[in-house]
């Protein structure tokens, strides 16, 4: 795989939150909030009044993704 601008520190940070929802900053290199499930993340967001992020799910890192839903 080509090594095209991988932010290793951010990758490691994301890896710590596998199988969780995170709220990323718009520049996508900072995690603003984390929740094991979406409900927890939304509660944290509301409590801390965090806005302006991007909702992102971090899949388990030791599994290949083959989504193919029909």
């Amino acid at each position, binding site marked *: 795989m080509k090594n095209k601008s991988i932010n290793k520190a951010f990758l490691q940070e994301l890896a710590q939150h596998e199988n969780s929802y995170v709220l990323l900053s718009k520049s996508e290199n900072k995690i603003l909030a984390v929740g094991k499930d979406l409900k927890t993340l939304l509660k944290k967001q509301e409590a801390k009044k965090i806005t302006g992020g*991007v*909702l992102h799910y*971090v899949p388990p890192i030791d599994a290949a993704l083959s989504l193919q*839903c029909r």
Partner: protein
Amino acid sequence: MPVIKFDYFVRPSIENKKLIGIFSPIVPIRLSAQHKMYPDPINCFVDSGADFNLMPALIGENLGLNIKKGEKTTHIGIGNVGIIAYKHPVKIFVNGYSFRTFTNFSYDHKIPILGRYGFFDHFKKVTFNQKKFQLELEH
């Protein structure tokens, strides 16, 4: 023709016990339903193998949808594992481009997915540019 380009998102994965980055076609969309906008953009996997859009049910609930009132459908993936989902009308915004479509919502699914019917079919051309690690959406 207008083309929206997104750099692939680099997500963490493990290969030979080492942490690596996998370049993935993940794009941020805005989602609305019943005239209510989900508060944040949602990163979604663009999945050419998926027939339909599929989102976690809680996203739909946050938009005020009564999820189980939607048309019931079953999504089957790898290994023939089926999950129940419910179809609802939504509006999707991708950069400055928006369209009315349908999305299925499931309580058994975590990864937001954009599929061929409901997303791809609203573009003239969808290109997975593996050389540039870019997704190109022509509309």
